[in-house]
């Protein structure tokens, strides 16, 4: 029988992280293989075609579409400035000439004799890609982008909002089960990646925005607070483009839930180190989870062999595996696998499913569906 794979979040003191940094369309790669780069260095650049503005000159100047090209003062491929006359009609006996003054600047891309429509292409839109993580370029893909590699401490969150952010790790809570209250956020946390403990109320996030923190990370938050912070009810977990003033990452889930001890201990051991974070989450096939990436520096960064590279946790469940229960009624409880009965069992819901036994940190032994746990660490 095939072995079932159980998902999990990756939390590790050391791994070899590879950031694939590519442009949306072909462009210039500014660094080469072997170059050392800092997290915020621009490594590739391109220009997207500018916005296209259609202008129906036939309607604007009361012409037949076929007459439009003959009235243009500038031809296809030529540039027109905002406020410049783009077209002029011949008028009647040279009198009563109509004019159209362009409202936008750009290059005339086309003029149609069928529709009387002129398309003006605006200024190209520059796009820059940053390295994201301080490290070394191990591959440069001409015209496309680069792969940057670094040995890092790595924490994968469960959900986030907001995009890439950078700053030093600063601890706000002393214990993973301590609520991340607003009064724990201080002015000196400006530009920092601030680490909380358990639930993070909306007030804390607002306070962190006020002091200019780069990101806040904690175990959990209430959905009601998320809605308030975003200004709308999030329907599907596809995030990363929100602009609320900082990046928010939760490591465990929604509700009153403490950060896993292992995660908290790792982050506090790296307090003061420069981190790169990304709140982007996509929960679809090809899942994307938020990340906290903290490059190793000094002696810790000395090369080692056989450093793992996988950015996703999870694996095969065995007795002794550390797991987190991820569904009510035991949501958030952590323990080790104590038994893996092979026969499906009838659950309280009436459904039949394969289960496992979890010996909890509290000493309690629980039976839960195998689908309702995830592997911690890895």
């Amino acid at each position, binding site marked *: 029988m095939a072995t079932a794979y159980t998902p999990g979040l990756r939390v590790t003191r050391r791994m070899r992280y590879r950031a694939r940094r590519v442009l949306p369309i072909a462009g210039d790669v500014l660094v080469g293989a072997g170059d050392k780069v800092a997290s915020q260095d621009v490594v590739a650049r391109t220009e997207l075609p500018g916005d296209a503005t259609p202008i129906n000159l036939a309607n604007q100047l009361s012409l037949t579409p076929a007459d439009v090209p003959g009235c243009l003062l500038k031809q296809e491929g030529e540039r027109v400035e905002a406020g410049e006359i783009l077209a002029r009609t011949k008028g009647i006996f040279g009198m009563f000439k109509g004019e159209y003054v362009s409202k936008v600047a750009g290059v005339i891309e086309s003029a149609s004799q069928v529709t009387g429509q002129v398309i003006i292409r605006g200024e190209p839109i520059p796009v820059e890609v940053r390295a994201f993580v301080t490290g070394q370029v191990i591959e440069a893909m001409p015209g496309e982008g680069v792969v940057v590699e670094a040995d890092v401490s790595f924490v994968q969150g469960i959900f986030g909002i907001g995009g890439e952010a950078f700053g030093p790790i600063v601890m706000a809570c002393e214990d993973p089960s301590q609520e991340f209250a607003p009064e724990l956020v201080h002015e000196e946390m400006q530009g920092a990646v601030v680490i909380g403990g358990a639930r993070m109320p909306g007030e804390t996030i607002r306070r962190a925005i006020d002091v200019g923190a780069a990101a806040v990370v904690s175990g959990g938050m209430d959905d009601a607070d998320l809605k308030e912070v975003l200004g709308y009810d999030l329907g599907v977990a596809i995030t990363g483009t929100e602009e609320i003033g900082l990046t928010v990452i939760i490591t465990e889930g929604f509700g009153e839930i403490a950060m896993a001890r292992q995660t908290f201990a790792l982050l506090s051991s790296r307090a003061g180190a420069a981190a790169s974070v990304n709140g982007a989450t996509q929960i679809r096939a090809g899942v994307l989870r938020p990340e906290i990436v903290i490059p190793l520096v000094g002696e810790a960064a000395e090369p080692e062999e056989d450093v793992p590279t996988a950015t996703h946790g999870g694996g095969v469940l065995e007795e002794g595996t550390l797991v987190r229960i991820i569904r009510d009624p035991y949501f958030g409880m952590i323990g080790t696998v104590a038994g893996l009965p092979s026969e499906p069992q009838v659950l309280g*819901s009436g459904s039949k499913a394969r289960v496992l036994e979890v010996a909890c940190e509290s000493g309690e032994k629980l039976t839960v569906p195998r689908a309702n746990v995830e592997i911690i660490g890895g």
Partner: protein
Amino acid sequence: MNATNPDQINVILATDCGSTTTKAILIEKIDGHYRQTYRGEAPTTVEQPVADVTAGVINAATEVGELAGRRLVDEQGQLIRPVKPAGEGQPAEGCDIYISTSSAGGGLQMLVTGVVREMTAASAKRAALGAGAIVMDVIASNDRRKPHEQIQRIRELRPDMILMSGGTDGGTVEHVVRIAELIAPAKPQPRFGSGYRMPLIYAGNKEAAGLVREVFDDTVELSVVDNIRPVLERENLGPARDRIHDLFLEHVMAHAPGYDKLIAWTDAPIMPTPGAVGDILQQIAKARGINVVGVDIGGATTDVFSVFDGADGNPVFNRTVSANLGMSYSISNVCAETGMPNVLRWVHFDMDERELRNRVKNKMIRPTTIPQTLEALVFEQAVAREALRLAYIQHREFATTLKGVQQQRTVGDTFSQQKGGQSIVDNMKLDLLVASGGVLSHAPRMEQTAAMLIDAFEPEGVTELAKDSIFMMPHLGVLASVHPQAALEVFERDCLIYLGTCVAAKGRAKAGKNCFRYEISGEPINERGEMACGEIRRFPLSIEETAQIVIEPARGFDVGGGPGKRIEREVRGGEVGLILDARGRPLELPEDRDNCRSRVERWSRDLRLYSE
């Protein structure tokens, strides 16, 4: 691809390559009839580290082979074809044909355009949906966006292909070309494979085809097919639909990992999964001469399919995809769209709303978890009712008679004027309602599946209820293209699990008043009585049994014969039996929370939904 004589096909292997799982079934001819015998599944392998869809297919086929005691895959990892008969001490091996559907990688995503949103653009949308696509957006001259906003939108989307319609043959040229002039400068980029050109199908006014061609440069691969709406009174969706399927194989599939191999393996063109489901439902509607609604509720989306008699009496097929109504990835969106009070009205005990909202979000971010407690199950089924209800509303609004058609009316029509654009989905004319998708298929009790269907779809009159046993409809849809008889036989015998028949009265009155009298006669039951408004009752009638019913509705109620008119029908049994529903249509629940809770609790008890 092999050309095979249907009479010589005895063993069929079919797979459906979904986003997460590849499901394989084996169909064998037994005693002259085709039966589905074994099934197996394996994770789909379109992502790293394997990135070859055929690996998942081989794994699923191997599992089926092991269960069937029949080798389907040889030592080189190839499917064994044709069948090698049993020899001395050697069991038979292989299959006669292999077929497949696919929705891996998010299925087929399309942008459609037309001149008028309600006319040619609606026809284009119908063609794309019918072919099994997800329609990302509909661009039309009257979609209330400014041209630069439309261009910007086209730029943002990364569809797999574009379907462009507009104008009847001999009609507007200018408006059609104007739409082309929005698409061309947007320079749309295909979702996969930066190295290939965006496929664009033009299915509009044939007199504009040459001018449309002139607008596009070589960044798109333009193909021209017959007009989707040659005259306002008629749609011609077939050519566009066929071209979508061709391009799906040539471009979208060909760029997905391992699909070049899979295409070479199959004995019929690979179809998008929802397209295949639509095909089998059309086949069954045609074969039995009935109106059918099918639903597939997934984690992210809900598909609704219907085949109903159109204005001219011919069956009309419609499919809609409610892109953000689903039970895991989109569960939060269902709650946001309908509102938590609408979900909680189906729950017969109190729940803390803050706690529930967090649970919903936790399900969204960890979509593979399952309800462990009865409370969690009841809540999930409440969400399902709302997701299905909203998806069906969207479907009914979409499945309409053609808009823009001129109608000749006489004085006699003065009081019964039907406008164009009326929904053709009529619950009173619905004969069969088919359910599929995890929350419906895997409900611990069949009664729960039946109750979710009745509450969400509100069938009227006499309606058979069924569920797809193991989500076999996609396989049978593609099988129907090579062997329709085999597909229909398996559909009736193994695919559908009949839940029973629902008899529901349309109309409203005060709770407790007489709704209808009933008389049920048959081998297992002989009962007569009266149903009061607000009641629902279940009568055991097993899957092999039928019964004669006579229903006499009270004044103002209709069970299919007209208001107050008596009906006599033979009804089919099923795993649940016969359900008499006197709760009224439209179904309304009390606004007062206490009343609502006690009403829903009584219905749960009467239908024996839960074991409490």
